[in-house]
C-alpha cells in the first residue's frame, strides 16, 4: 500500500468514528423517547387497570385488585358490545376495500378528467369535523329507513375508512415503475394478469397499511355509530365513553386494555405482510 493512500485513510478514521458514536447516541435518545412516550403510558394504563387506588405523585398503586376486571367483565351488555365490534369492523374493512381498492387502482395508474377533484373530495371527508357530516347524513338515513340498523352503522363507519383505503393504496399502485408493467405485458400477461401478478403484490404493503388504519378507524369510531346505532347497536368504544363518565377511572383503564386487544392482535397477524411488503417496496427504485 502506498504511503499517500495510507495517510489519507488514517485521516478519515477519527471522523468516521465520531460519526458512529454520534449516531449511537442519537439512537439511544430515540429509543428512550419511544419508551417514555409509548411504553410508559401503556404500563401506567395496565397498572391502573389493576389498581385499588393510585394517587398521582406515587409511581405505583396503593394495592392491587381484580375488582375492576370483575365489574367490567360482568357488566350487562359487554359481551354484546364485544360481539358487535369484532363482527362489524371486519365487515366494514372488507366492504371498504371492495369499494375503494378499484378506485385506488384507477387513481394510481390512470389519468382521467376530474382526477384531482375526486382526490380532493375524498380528502375533504377528513378535512372537516366528522360530526357535521354525520348530522348531514342522518336525514338521508332516516329517509332510507337505515337509522338504528346494522347497515346504517356499517355505512357510517365506512366513511371514516375511505381516505385511508383510497389514498394509501393509490400511491402504492402509482409507485410501481411502468417498466415492470411493460415487462409483464411483454412476457405475455394481459391486463388482468398484470394486475394480479405484478401490481397487486407490489402494492400489497400499502394495502396492508391502509387495512390496519381502516380497521382502527372503524373499530374506534364512536360518534357516528352512536348517532345512528343507539340504542340497539352500542359498540365497545361507545360503551367505554359512557363508562368513563359513570365509573372510577380504573374502570375505563380496564376497558381501554380490552379495547386494544383486537388492534394489537391485528398488528401481530399482519406484521409479516407489512414488513415483507415494505422490503420489496423499498427496493423498487
Amino acid at each position, binding site marked *: 500500500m502506498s504511503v499517500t493512500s495510507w495517510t489519507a485513510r488514517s485521516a478519515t478514521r477519527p471522523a468516521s468514528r465520531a460519526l458512529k458514536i454520534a449516531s449511537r447516541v442519537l439512537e439511544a435518545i430515540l429509543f428512550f423517547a419511544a419508551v417514555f412516550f409509548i411504553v410508559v403510558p401503556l404500563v401506567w394504563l395496565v397498572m391502573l387497570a389493576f389498581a385499588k387506588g393510585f394517587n398521582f405523585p406515587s409511581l405505583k398503586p396503593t394495592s392491587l385488585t381484580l375488582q375492576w376486571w370483575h365489574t367490567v367483565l360482568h357488566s350487562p351488555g359487554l359481551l354484546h358490545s364485544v360481539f358487535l365490534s369484532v363482527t362489524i369492523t371486519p365487515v366494514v374493512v372488507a366492504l371498504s376495500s371492495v369499494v375503494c381498492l378499484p378506485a385506488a387502482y384507477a387513481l394510481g395508474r390512470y389519468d382521467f378528467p376530474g382526477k384531482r377533484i375526486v382526490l380532493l373530495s375524498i380528502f375533504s371527508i377528513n378535512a372537516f369535523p366528522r360530526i357535521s357530516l354525520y348530522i348531514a347524513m342522518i336525514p338521508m338515513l332516516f329517509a332510507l329507513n337505515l337509522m338504528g340498523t346494522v347497515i346504517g352503522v356499517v355505512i357510517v363507519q365506512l366513511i371514516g375508512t375511505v381516505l385511508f383505503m383510497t389514498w394509501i393504496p393509490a400511491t402504492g399502485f402509482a409507485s410501481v415503475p411502468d*417498466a*415492470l408493467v*411493460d*415487462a409483464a*405485458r*411483454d412476457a*405475455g*400477461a394481459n391486463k388482468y394478469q398484470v394486475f394480479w*401478478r405484478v401490481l397487486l403484490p407490489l402494492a400489497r404493503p400499502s394495502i396492508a397499511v391502509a387495512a390496519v388504519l381502516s380497521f382502527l378507524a372503524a373499530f374506534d369510531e364512536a360518534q357516528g355509530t352512536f348517532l345512528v346505532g343507539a340504542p340497539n347497536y352500542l359498540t365497545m368504544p361507545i360503551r367505554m365513553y359512557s363508562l368513563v363518565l359513570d365509573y372510577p377511572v380504573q374502570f375505563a383503564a380496564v376497558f381501554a386494555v380490552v379495547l386494544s386487544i383486537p388492534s394489537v392482535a391485528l398488528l401481530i397477524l399482519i406484521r409479516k405482510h407489512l414488513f415483507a411488503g415494505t422490503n420489496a417496496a423499498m427496493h423498487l427504485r
Partner: protein
Amino acid sequence: MSINTESHGSELLLEEVTKTFASVAAVDHVNLRVAPSEFVTLLGPSGSGKTTLLRMIGGFLSPDSGRILIDGNDVVDTPVERRPTAMLFQQLSLWPHLSVARNISFGLELRRRPKSEIATRVAELLSVVGLSDFQNRLPSQLSGGQQQRVALARALALEPRILLLDEPFSALDTKLRIELRTFVRKLQREVGTTTILVTHDQEEALELSDRIVVLREGRVVQIGEPTEIYDSPRTGFVAEFLGSMSFFSGSLVAGGIRLKSGDVIPVEQPFGHVPGTPQIGVRPEDVLVAADESSGAFVIERITRKGYFNELTLRCGDVSLAAYVGREVPGSVHSRVDVHIRTIHLFSEDGGTMDAIDGAEQHVASGADFGGAHATEFSGAQETRG
C-alpha cells in the same frame, strides 16, 4: 451449453411507419427491412425517434400510419402480450417480489407450460447467463449487471422471434457495459434471434451491429454496415455522430485544399474537382501532423490527453482542425505544424442538412446542392481508404 434454437430469427419489415406526438413527428415515414437473424442498431440522439420506433415494434405504442410486418404478418393490431417479440429494458425491470427463477419462468407460467419443462428451461437459461447459483435470490440481492443478465434470460425464455434491446447497457458502469454487450453479441450469434438495439452510444453500435440505422428527428438518415457508415457518412450529422469530424470550407485545387487564408493543405487520396467552396469534413485520424516551426500553416491550440493517444486542436485562421497523434506530440501548445490529410469528405454547402455528395453507392438525398454525377466522381476517395 446449448439453448433452444428452434426459434430462428424472423424477418421484420417496417413500411412507412409514422408516429406523431403533439403534432411533432416522432417517427416520420420510416422504411426498414431487417433480415432474419440480423443484428440492427437504431442509432441517434435523444429525440431522434429510435425508442418510439422500438416501442412500436414491441407493441407498446401503435403507429399512426404504416405497417409493421413480422414474417409477412402485419402485427400493428396485435397487442404486446401476443407479439413474438421480447424486450430488454433500459431501466432495471425485474419484478422485485419474485425470485430470479420466478422472474424467468413468469412468461412460461402464463403459457401454462408443464412444471418440469419450466424448471429445465429456467436452469438452462440461468446457466447461459452464468447465474445458476442465484435462482432463489431476490432481484434486490443482485448487482445491476446481474439483474440485467437475469432480464436477458427472462426475455430469452419466451423464445422471441425478435429481440428488442432498449439501451439495456446504459444503466451499467463502463466495464460491465462492455462485458455484457460482448456477451449479448456472442449469444445473439449463437441463437440467431433477429435483434434490434436502440442506443445513442456509437461505440456500442459499431461493435455490435450487422447494420446501423442512423435516425435524426424521426427520419432515417443513413442505413449501412458499420464500416460503410463510418467511412462514407452521408451527412455531416452522421459523420459527427459516428466518430468525430472537423468541418471547414475551402476550394479544391489539384492535390489539396486551398483555405481562405491562401494556405494549401495537401490531400493524399485523389479527388475530383468541385466548383465553389463545399463543406469539407476531415476525421481526426486522417490528419497527419509534422513539426515545422518555420513554415507550418497550423498552430497547436490545445493538447488533450486521451491515454494512449493525444488529440490536438489545430488552428489556421478561422479553420479549426482536430487531429489524433500518438503519445509523441510534434511540438507543444503554440508550436507551428505542417498538416497532411489522408482523405476528405465533401458535403453540400448548405449547413442545415449538409447532405453528402461523396457517398459511394448511396444516392444523394433530396436538398443536396450538388448532382449525383459529382457524387460518383468523389467516391474514389473513400473506397481506397484502409
